[in-house]
């Protein structure tokens, strides 16, 4: 058998002790996974991480549950502050996730057991894909191990903390060992911009609207794939919610894990800094016409029929909940044929209850989903055929995951359409 650490990876005495089982069998198992991945990446060493965000708590099958249960059985616990991504069920709102078919029951049972296993290892019951909306956020230059593609993009790009593209299995092993391979986006080299994207031809009014994030993200992700885009021309007051929507869409349509917005994100004070002094490999110019085209490409529905509205992917922020409450406050009720969902984190929802926004939403028949999301588990009624969303990520995945047609719209259009009981959109919003 080959030396499992390989010829190039150097471990500290503490790391070697973990690998050798001196700190327990659970830690040794987690370290074997981290070291195995470090070898694949040809990492010269491991890096200490200060927090972790775990995506492995969404049920995909028995192996995920077996993995978490084995770690629990071996006594593993997380050694850094660890947040949890969405699970397969809504623990706060029983009945939200459907539980009729055998497949749904398997997900419900397995999903609950999986969520409990991650809690048993000491992770926080945050159950959100937007851990950057929680109290403690990692700062500029801090190494972390985050999973979930939108959280990874936000962490690297908006917070300036450093994580590579982690996912199921590796995420919890990093949390247990407090280590990750020193590779990928932990290194300065991998964080530099590759492609310059000029959006200055698009009016600021449009760029500050809530369709700019998802539509630009979709366009840029489709174009750059896994490269790092650098946006120029975004207004300095661009909100975190726009950056969230941009990153989520770009990570879905492409594989973007790091982007820069010149004058907005922390590693992009200037174009030159964002590119690390190198010239862009390529320059792309986007216009309002491109935004209109992006909306058409993301929209698969062909008429104005509407069954469902789903907003809050990634999980709605407090500001987004407040905007929705504001739009709903004075006006007609939601049409009876339309189910209107908002997905959010339980901590943001608790704040919305304190601020009175939750009560406004509930009074207007909005269905809140916490702890999970409307596109990863069985929530929509099976008869639903057409769904409207303000999320580029939801629009990207829902046709495949849920078998529904999608209409991409702004939050205002979502409310207006839900009231009308049919699709009401206006491309002039994009010009």
């Amino acid at each position: 058998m080959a030396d499992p650490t390989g010829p190039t990876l150097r471990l500290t005495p503490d790391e070697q002790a973990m690998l050798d089982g001196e700190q327990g069998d659970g830690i040794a198992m987690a370290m074997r996974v981290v070291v195995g991945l470090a070898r694949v990446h040809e990492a010269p060493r491991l890096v200490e991480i200060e927090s972790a965000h775990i995506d492995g708590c969404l049920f995909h099958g028995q192996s995920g549950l077996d993995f978490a249960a084995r770690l629990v059985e071996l006594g593993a616990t997380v050694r850094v502050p660890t947040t949890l991504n969405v699970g397969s069920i809504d623990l706060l709102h029983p009945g939200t996730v459907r539980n009729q078919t055998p497949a749904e029951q398997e997900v419900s049972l397995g999903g609950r057991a999986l969520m409990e296993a991650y809690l048993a290892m000491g992770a926080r019951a945050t159950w959100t894909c937007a851990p950057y909306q929680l109290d403690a956020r990692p700062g500029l230059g801090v190494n972390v191990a985050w999973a979930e593609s939108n959280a990874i993009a936000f962490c690297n790009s908006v917070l300036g903390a450093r994580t590579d593209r982690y996912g199921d299995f590796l995420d919890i092993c990093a949390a247990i060992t407090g280590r990750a391979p020193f590779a990928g986006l932990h290194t300065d080299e991998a964080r530099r911009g590759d492609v310059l994207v000029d959006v200055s031809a698009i009016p600021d009014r449009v760029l500050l609207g809530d369709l700019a994030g998802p539509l630009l993200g979709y366009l840029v992700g489709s174009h750059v794939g896994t490269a790092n885009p650098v946006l120029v021309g975004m207004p300095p007051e661009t909100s975190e919610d726009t950056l969230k929507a941009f990153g989520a869409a770009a990570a879905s349509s492409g594989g973007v894990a790091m982007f820069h917005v010149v004058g907005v994100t922390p590693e992009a004070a200037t174009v030159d800094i964002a590119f690390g002094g190198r010239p862009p490999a390529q320059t792309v110019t986007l216009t309002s016409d491109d935004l209109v085209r992006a909306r058409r490409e993301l929209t698969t529905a062909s008429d104005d029929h509407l069954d469902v509205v789903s907003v809050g992917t990634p999980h709605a922020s407090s500001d987004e909940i407040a905007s929705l409450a504001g739009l709903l406050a004075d006006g007609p009720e939601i049409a009876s044929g339309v189910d209107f969902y908002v997905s959010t984190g339980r901590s943001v929802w608790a704040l919305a209850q304190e601020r009175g926004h939750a009560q406004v939403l509930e009074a207007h028949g909005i269905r809140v989903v916490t702890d999970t999301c409307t596109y990863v588990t069985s929530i929509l009624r099976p008869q639903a055929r057409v769904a409207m969303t303000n999320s580029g990520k939801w629009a990207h995945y829902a046709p495949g995951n849920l078998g529904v047609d999608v209409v991409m719209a702004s939050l205002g259009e979502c409310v207006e359409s839900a009231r009308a009981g049919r699709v009401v959109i206006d491309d002039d919003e994009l010009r």
Partner: protein
Amino acid sequence: MTTSSADTPSRMPLSAVALHAGRASGTVLHLDTPLSFWGGTDHDGTIIDAHHPQRGQSVTGRVLVMRAGRGSSSSSYVLAEQLRQQCGPAAIVLAERDAIVVLGAIVARELYGSDMPVALVTDDDLATLPTGLTVTVDCSTEAASITSTP
């Protein structure tokens, strides 16, 4: 199933890098484009990606030869799930350092004692492994090798 005739390449044995230890023999299934296990294969090991040239073929027990995996990190999960149900490949040969594929193999070893090796070869050597060739992938040492088995 169509299999291309397999002239034994003159460069055998191929030298390879062990991305994940193990040793296995089987018949090559050479994929023309990268495969995402998640969404691209079912839990029984059949390729279901509608756009994949090898759609409908089974990876079960085969030496799966492809440049790289593709797509979501949930592919690790699906590969581990196939190995749990003994529907996975016998071995995987790649031309890129694909962490998602290796992670699935590591997890299947930890949980189910799977012995599926993952080997890294050059692009040129990858092309010398046509569908239908019977090979042994030996990643039991760091300097791994792929030999054709008559």
